[in-house]
């Protein structure tokens, strides 16, 4: 399991080297896989990243603490909110600022909506990767309904820049709760349809069951977290194990599976979407309607954060997402490191899982790991 894949003699003429990506419709985001194939079987895989590298961690060292908050959300394009939350949490931890309870509820709502939107997009992706493009059409549209909610709440569809260190940037708009419930109902109805069309689909089942099996003992050494890990039978979730925000006040179940293949991972995510909707409904019902949504802040223009270091993690859609930050007491941070789950899932794990699969299943396998290349490279 930990040995490198056996060396392959390309000059023997039995093998063909294939580049999948970065310009390839079956690849998630902008990365590439270097496949060695024998017939249509993949015998070796190398992952290549770096196409999306922007040097965020360096850019952040040049920006003040408030200026960093619009920057971080762009680290993971389809799922910016977790970055916003984690950055805010890290800064709050280092400065000792506490965001007020109302902000905590709004943040939770925001994160869970983001998770749902992100899962919807992923659900479309897994559908499309196995030829079920109708599901893709449906889910992307329903994700758009959630983006409408975000637009209303935060002022933007993709990069919300809403969770600011100290709280959130504004109260929820008038009538938001009703519109949000309406969207949740629609999504829930869609999910039931998707279950029938995708998860009960003989094609999907046949192709995904057994594909990309992650052995249980591989999980910890490879740093596999999130639904990928839960599909392998571990019941671990930071929302339960190290609750942050208001997760300790919400009722939800941990979803696990044991098969640890593409189908199991998909099914875990599918059930987690239902749990997400459940949590969102609780948020809407129980959220405080008044009180401050921002802590008392210093003048942010020259905000000096005391020297210190900290690591804060949260359970994002794909697993553990963490921010490690070192400050030296100046207006600029000394070092930040963003730990995204895509890094471990898409690079080392993918290289292992791809071996022995069919070329046609590579796209589906990748999607089943749910990785975002912009987050790998930052």
């Amino acid at each position, binding site marked *: 399991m930990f040995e490198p894949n056996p060396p392959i003699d390309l000059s023997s003429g039995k093998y063909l080297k294939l580049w999948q990506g970065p310009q390839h419709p079956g690849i998630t985001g902008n990365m590439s896989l270097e496949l060695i194939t024998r017939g249509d079987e993949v015998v070796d895989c190398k992952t290549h990243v770096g196409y999306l590298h922007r040097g965020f961690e360096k850019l952040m060292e040049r920006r003040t603490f408030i*200026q960093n908050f619009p920057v971080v959300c762009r680290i993971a394009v389809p799922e910016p909110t977790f970055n916003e939350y984690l950055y805010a949490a890290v800064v709050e931890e280092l400065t000792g600022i506490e965001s007020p309870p109302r902000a905590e509820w709004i943040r939770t709502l925001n994160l869970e909506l983001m998770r749902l939107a992100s899962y919807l997009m992923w659900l479309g992706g897994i559908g499309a990767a196995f030829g079920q493009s109708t599901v893709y059409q449906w889910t992307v549209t329903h994700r758009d309904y959630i983006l409408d909610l975000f637009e209303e709440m935060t002022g933007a569809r993709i990069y919300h820049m809403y969770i600011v260190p100290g709280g959130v940037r*504004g109260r929820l708009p008038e009538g938001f709760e009703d519109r949000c419930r309406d969207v949740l109902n629609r999504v829930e109805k869609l999910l039931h349809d998707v279950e029938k069309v995708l998860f009960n689909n*003989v094609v999907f*089942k046949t192709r995904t069951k057994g594909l990309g099996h992650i052995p249980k003992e591989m999980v910890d050494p490879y740093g596999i977290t999130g639904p990928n890990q839960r599909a392998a039978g571990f019941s671990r979730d930071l929302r339960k194990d190290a609750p942050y925000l208001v997760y300790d006040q919400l009722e939800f179940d941990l979803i696990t599976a044991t098969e640890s293949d593409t189908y199991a991972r998909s099914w875990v995510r599918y059930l987690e979407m239902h749990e997400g909707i459940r949590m969102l409904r609780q948020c809407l019902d129980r959220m405080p309607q008044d009180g401050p949504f*921002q802590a008392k802040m210093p003048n*942010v*223009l020259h905000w000096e954060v005391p020297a210190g270091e900290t690591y804060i993690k949260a359970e994002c859609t794909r697993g553990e997402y963490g921010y490690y930050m070192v400050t030296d007491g100046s207006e600029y941070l000394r070092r930040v490191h963003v730990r995204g789950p895509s890094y471990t899932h898409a690079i080392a794990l993918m290289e292992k899982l791809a071996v022995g699969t069919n070329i046609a299943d590579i796209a589906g396998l990748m999607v089943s790991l749910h990785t975002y290349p912009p987050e790998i490279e930052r």
Partner: protein
Amino acid sequence: MSLKDLISPFYVWQRAFEKPYTQKRPIEDRPGAPRYRGFHMNSEECIGCGTCESICQNHAIDMVPVEGLEQRAGDSGLRPRFDYGRCCWCALCVDICTTRSLHLSNHYAWVTEDPDAFHFTAGTDAMPWNQNSLGYRRDDDYHLLVHDRVEMQALSAEESVAGFDEVMRGYTEEEAVLEADRCVECGICVATCPAHMAIPDYIRTVRKGDYEAGLRLLYETNPFSSTCGRICTHRCETVCVMGYQGDPIAIRWLKRAIVDRVPQEKYREILGDEVEENGKTVGVIGAGPGGMSAAYYLRRQGYAVTVYEAQARAGGMLRYGVPSYRLPDNQLDKDLEYIRSLGVEMRFNTQVGRDIPFTQLLDEHDALFLAVGLNQPSALRIAGEEHPRVLSGLRVLDDVASGKDPGVGKRVAVIGGGNVAMDAARVSRRLGAEVDVLYRRRIEDMPADPEEIRESQAEGCTLVPQAIPVEIRNASDSNQVTIVWGEAEMVADDKGGRPRPVLQEDRMHEETYDCIIAAIGQGGQIDFIPAEFRDRIEFKWNKFVPGDYQQTGLEKLFVGGDIANSRADAISAIEDGHHAARGIHRFLSGALDG
């Protein structure tokens, strides 16, 4: 594989009968949400402070000068220019906008083939979205700046009226840092400060706790920092951008915070005392803030400076006009001592014209700086003013400053609404008198500083606005005096001046006091300038009209201070002195035409 798995996917057809998702006309039918962060708009309230520019992490905002803007105090004349090849619509600029003029529309479509076209100046360029009424605004309860001032510890009204102890106690180090932290460093104040002090820079030194650097910055433009840290008229604070949504930064108190933390003994070490003599001499007439400021900057440049002062001590109006509960003597001395320690020669009790002729000074020195100030109180010029119980405000303050009892009695009427009137009233309160302040106009027209007015009221002075004195009479008790005053109606001035009070002769009042203190204004006295020079010097009313660098038509003579400017405050005099020092240096080194 079960049969269910084969059939179930056909469920997809059910959705074929539902309403399609497709937006018919997306561009027209889907405007941005009410809070959408679209393109920028800027309203007229913008004063070009540039805070948006400093917070923009993408350098998408440039402050550019805009033609045809209405000239306003505290307006830099710059407006933000946006580069939509940089902007990321985070709207931090909106959140930080000090005047709340900047906001976003919900317009979001801009497509063009020219990459250099995505520039515009918000608010002044005609953009298609300028009329949009929706879009992102900062929420009322969300702040990136601190709007409330850190209040300074002060004596209560009862405590302060009991003696001449300084009322304002100064910031603690923590308070000073908190207050300094509020500054957005826009620099609007620098343009408004008569001395153009490096305000944001010295505030930063307070924040960093580097008081020595702060002191050096202060002395670059103002050698009366301890004084100005207490009694400056702080025009800077009236334009401070933080004042648009909250309290302006306490710039004056922060200046004081620096000097309070540097002991007198360290001044020479921090600021240096090296002077390279250049062999030229300059005479300064008047040891007030203007004269001493000129003396300081001239001495720094190596001139041998002699200051001629009619009084026995230096400080001018700061010593004889400002009571010690606002400016303790030792604080004024702190400033003056350092200037004198550089080797400035002082000639006290030397009144030019009486003790030494003006022409002699003109001959002895390479240049002269004249800042004699306004020390002649204006007379009331109403019937009966020669009554012995009618005192002048300046005299009362002078007496108190020199330790004499002005003998105001138990019940005092102060006439006037300027700082001298307020000082006279508050001094009288401290001497145990009941005080009425009669003022011809409304309280909001009073030229005194607002806090002076507020504090005098707190200390129990009764302000009687719109009261015009018309006559002074003998009272039945010869130690008392009676004043007749009439109520005033305010009429607007057609020519745009301040509203004028008009006496209502049918509404007269009569009141008896132990004394009346007149503090209606003061004039200057320059009769010592011989008639032969008159034609070369320009005057308007009773003031000098100096040319560039405070120079008069008599080339060697430079003038400044209250007698040469219309603002009549210490900071303006200080700047006149500094400016004249630069002028004299240029003149004597041949760079300034005569």
